[in-house]
Each structure stands twice: as C-alpha cells, then as structure tokens.
C-alpha cells in the first residue's frame, strides 16, 4: 500500500511534468490588463485620454520590460540576435503601415542583389529614411508570409524558408523596434501553395491561420508573441470549393482577424450564394459560426481577396461588400455594386450606410467616427498605370467624422494625380497626417494591343511613399524605391 509521503511525491512529480516554467506569465497578464484598460478608454477621443492612463501604461511597459529582461535570462528559446545592418538597393513595397507621424514599418520584396528575398524596414522619421531590420536567419529565398506591426516597438513576422529550411514556418518577434529578434518554435511543416494570415491584439496575444489544399485551415494561438503556438481549431478543406467554379484558388479558411481576446473573424474560402463568407467566434477562436450580413455577395470568385471587417474598437466595425440586392448602389457595371456596412454592436448586426463616389474603393477608419474612402476607376486602383504620358485619373478622396453617415470630398492635388502612379494604399494616422503608397510601372504598349502592358524584361518600377500633413489636400513624395 502506498504511503502518504510516497503518494505525495508521485503526485508532485506527475504535476511538475505539466507545469513548465512560465517566464512570460507576469508580463502577459500585465499586458492583458493594460490592453483591457486601453480598449476601455479607446472609444473616447484620443485627446481626452487622461494622463493617469498614460502613466499606468508607461509604468506597465517599464515593469514589463524589466520583468522581461530578467526572465529572458531563463527563456528557453534562442537569445535575441542583432538585426542585419545591410540595406538592399532594390526593394518593392508590399505592405505595412505608419504607427504614428514618425514610426512606421513595412515589408518589401528585395529583387536586387542577393536574390528574391523579403525584407522588413522601419522608419522613425516619418518615412523619410528607412532602416533594414530583417531578422537574422532570414536569408535569400525566404518569403515573409505575414507581418503584424503592433506598435512602435513590437512586431511579429512569420516567414518560410528561414535557416535554409524551405518547409518550416518561423515567427520572429521584436520588442525593441527590430534591434533584436527572437525566433519561435516552428509550426508544423508547410505544404506547397499554403497561405498565412496573422492577427495580433497586443505584443503577446496572436492568432495564426495556416491554409493549404490538403490540410485545410489550421488556426493556431500564441500568448507569448509567437514564440510558442498551439493548435486551437481546424477546418478541413472542402473539395467542392476547388471545382465549382473551376480554377478558384482559395482554400478553406483564409484570413483571420481578432478584435478582442474572445471575438474574431475568419474569412471563408469560397462561400455559396447563401453564405456571407464570414465566420465569427466569441470564445477566442475555438468555435466558429457563420456571420450573417444583410446582403448577399456578388463576387463569389475568391472572397479571400476581400478585406475582413475593419474594427475601430470592440463595437464599431466597417466593411465594403459587393451587394446583389441593393439597387441604390448599382451604378454602371456589376463591379460597382458596392455598399458600406457598419456595425455598432461588435458585428451582431449590420446596417448599410451611404458610400460616396463609384468604382473600386478603399476604406479606412482610425476610430469609430473618423474615416476615409478613396473612390476611383478600377484601373487607377487595381492596375499599375502605364507610361508617364498615359492619362492619370483623379483620385476622389472623401472623409467622414460621423462614422460614415455623411462624407465630405477632399480636393487632392499633385503629385498624387499625375506622376506618382497607381495608388495601392492610403491611411490617416491622425486628423491631419496621412500616408499613401503609389506604384508606377513603366510599360511598353504595342500598337497591336494598346491596352496590354508588356513587361520588357526589367521595367523600372517605382514605389513612392507620399505624405500629407493637411488632411489629404496636398501630398509630397518623401521616399522612393526603384529597381
């Protein structure tokens, strides 16, 4: 018969096996508290955020940095390593954004010098100069599959091909603006043709959605900024999605976004006519239910390419959708059947709001009230515009200060309309400061087919970062990359 002490020692040993050290626990709890605090006060205008809250957040960050510094000594992952100092010559902007007037991050394709590899850049002077901060180990032939730029100091990027391993996905995290990076444990091996989508609420809490044709959609969760991932939920690939209509290059789940620790959204692969293609969770991602929208989608080709709803806070979200049953938003052609949907209750219900202009649009909201829309022809926004003598279409820009109920046109000026090229992104970091990316491709058009842009081998593409300090009225090119 087991004695009490024998039983106790066996009990302790068995439970110690499932109690690994949790060096980040204190930090993650504090970060969660700070996040909740921040979200509670977020709906208020920024100018009203009290100094007390700022002091609390600053102190939490200081304490967290101190605790993290202590704990890093025992952290079981490779220690931070300095970022590479080499800045490549040729780069093509891919995605990213400015956090505030000064600090911004971006992912770029590097197509010059050491092969086709991706890079991470960061600016601290409002976009005038950029420093390469790519994680070490991300060498040539590496693809940065996803980047989450959380604030001025914290970011996570997920790459495939790091350390010479072409099938493993690694997530790197930085807590010091890219000066050092930590690499997490690799997620399960990736298959050919996979896609990644990540969503981070704060420096610690994130979700990674992996999809491919064989495995379907696999949703992973991290609570330590991407160092460790655990499988939370999965959805097998549906074969029918790939055959009807044929050639649709979408998988099962394809894009993820969380607005709180509990509530998140997933974009579905290829919805039927009776589905919105959106799924919502209220338990942190373990279970997902279809999200009904007031209108059916028109474009069933690949909803992965449509954006997920943008949430300014827990309650207020916005999205543009193609709509088949709203006649008031049906101008010239089917592609123009667009409507703005807004929710004030975290996505439980949606209403249609007016949308200015026509054509393909981009929308953004920096809080529940203030947003912008750019409206133009499909060619201006979707396709790089041709040679410099080709006509450039004007760029109608509208802003709202009442959550999209009314819109005011903003007269924009040169060079946005004439020489910068096709606009690929635009966003406001505050009421006055806005950034826009433009891509210009010098093409050769043949007499036989003047509408087709022929790649002459190495076209001198130009990426331009534009900045406005007067609410979008005037723009200035502040950074140009060219190869």
């Amino acid at each position, binding site marked *: 018969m087991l004695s009490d002490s024998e039983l106790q020692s066996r009990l302790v040993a068995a439970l110690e*096996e*499932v109690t*690994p050290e949790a060096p980040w*626990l204190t930090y993650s709890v504090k970060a969660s508290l700070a996040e909740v605090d921040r979200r509670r006060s977020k709906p208020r205008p920024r100018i009203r955020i009290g100094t007390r809250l700022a002091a609390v957040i600053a102190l939490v960050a200081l304490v967290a940095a101190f605790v993290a510094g202590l704990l890093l000594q025992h952290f079981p992952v490779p220690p931070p390593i300095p970022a590479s100092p080499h800045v490549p010559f040729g780069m093509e902007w891919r995605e990213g954004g400015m956090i505030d007037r000064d600090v911004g991050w971006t992912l770029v394709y590097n197509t010059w010098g050491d092969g086709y590899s991706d890079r991470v850049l960061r600016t601290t002077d409002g976009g005038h100069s950029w420093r390469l901060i790519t994680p070490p180990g991300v060498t040539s032939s590496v693809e940065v599959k996803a980047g989450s730029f959380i604030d001025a100091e914290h970011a996570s990027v997920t790459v495939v091909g790091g350390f010479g391993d072409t099938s493993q996905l690694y997530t790197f995290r930085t807590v010091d603006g890219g000066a050092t990076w930590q690499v997490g444990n690799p997620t399960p091996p990736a298959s050919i043709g996979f896609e990644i989508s990540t969503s981070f609420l704060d420096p610690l809490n994130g979700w990674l959605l992996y999809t491919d044709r064989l495995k379907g959609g696999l949703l992973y969760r991290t609570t330590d900024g991407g160092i460790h991932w655990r499988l939370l939920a999965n959805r097998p690939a549906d074969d029918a999605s790939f055959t009807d209509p044929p050639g649709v290059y979408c998988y099962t789940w394809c894009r993820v976004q969380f607005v709180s620790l509990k509530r998140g959204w997933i974009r579905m692969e290829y919805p039927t006519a009776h589905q919105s293609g959106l799924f919502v969770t209220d338990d942190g991602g373990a279970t997902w239910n279809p999200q009904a929208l007031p209108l059916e989608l028109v474009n069933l080709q690949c909803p992965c390419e449509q954006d997920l709803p943008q949430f300014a806070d827990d309650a207020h979200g916005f999205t543009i959708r193609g709509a088949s049953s709203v006649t008031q938003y049906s101008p010239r052609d089917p592609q123009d059947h667009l409507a703005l949907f807004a929710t004030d209750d975290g996505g439980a219900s949606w209403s249609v709001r007016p949308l200015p202009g026509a054509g393909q649009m981009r929308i953004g909201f920096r809080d529940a009230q203030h947003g912008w829309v750019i409206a133009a022809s499909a060619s201006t926004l979707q396709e790089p515009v041709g040679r410099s003598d080709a006509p450039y279409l004007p760029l109608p820009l509208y802003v709202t200060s009442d959550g999209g109920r009314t819109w005011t046109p903003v007269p924009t000026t040169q060079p946005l309309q004439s020489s910068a090229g096709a606009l690929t992104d635009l966003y406001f970091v505050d009421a006055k400061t806005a950034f826009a990316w433009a891509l210009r491709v010098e093409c050769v058009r043949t007499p036989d087919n003047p509408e087709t842009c022929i790649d002459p081998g190495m076209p001198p593409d130009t990426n331009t970062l534009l900045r406005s300090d007067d609410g979008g009225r005037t723009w200035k090119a502040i950074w140009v990359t060219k190869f």
Partner: protein
Amino acid sequence: MSGQDAGALVLAVREDGDVAFERLLEPVLQPGYRLACGMLHDPAAAEDAVQQAALKAWRKLGRLRPGEPMRPWFLGIVANECRNLQRSKWWSVLKGAPHEQSRDMPADAVLGGIELRHALRSIGEDKRLVVVLHWYLDLPVDEIAVITGSSVHAVESRLRRGMHELRRRLEASDVER
C-alpha cells in the same frame, strides 16, 4: 508580503488603480499558475485560466476587504476559471501539443505520471482541488478552507477521501501493469 502591506495595497488600488494592483497580483500569479496546471494538466490552458482570473480579480477587487489576504481570494478565482474551462465547449476542442518535458524521462516514469494524472482527474472536482492545493501547492488546510469557501473540517474530510480514492485507483492501475 504581509497582510498589513496587502491591506494597504488594496486601499491603494482603490485610490490609485492599476499600478498597485499589479504589485498585489504579482506574488500570487505563480501559485495561480501551479494550481491551474495541477487542475487542467495543460500549461497553455493554465496560462489562459490565470489571465482570465487576473482580469476578473481586477474587476472585482472591490470585493476584497482591506486586510483580507490576496492569495486565497485569487486562488479561488483561478479554481473557478479552471472549472469553467473544463465545463465549457472551448475546453473540449483544445488540441494542445503534448508537453515536451516528459521526453527525456524513463518510460516508466512517463507512464506513472500519466496514470497519476488520469487518476487525479477521475476523483471529482472538489476533492481534486483540495488535493492539488494541499499536496502540490503545499497550502495549509485553513487557507484551503478560505479558498474553497468551506470549513476546515470539510477540507480535511475531502482531502482524506481524495487521497484514499487516488491511492485506490493508482494501486488498481499498478496491479494491471
């Protein structure tokens, strides 16, 4: 942290908010995590439970009277969170990877650990809680009584019955082996 200090901190939290709360919370996070690991046997879920418990503690701090010790109050919230996690649908679809620590251990030890945890899970929630608190967290029965909201006598009784059941189940599985 003495009870007096903690009491002063509770007052400070009410007056000054979050910073004092963190000081109050910090010493009890690791015990909370050990309790959650002992109850859930899943480190990732345990971290979630402690995070949720910390948020609830923050919101409900007004219920903690000045002078009342923080640890039993917080561990009670953690125990509740573990209970909620086990009962929710969320728990049933968790697919955490097996913990790596056991890989370097002898096969017998690994098997013994698995059997013991299995036996622990089968003895009933109230008994499991007091067994984990007493034998794994090394807490005295009077503090466990505060955590579980029951009498010292009830705690002792549950502890005896829990250990008895645990021993019986382990011996049965030892015989099968």
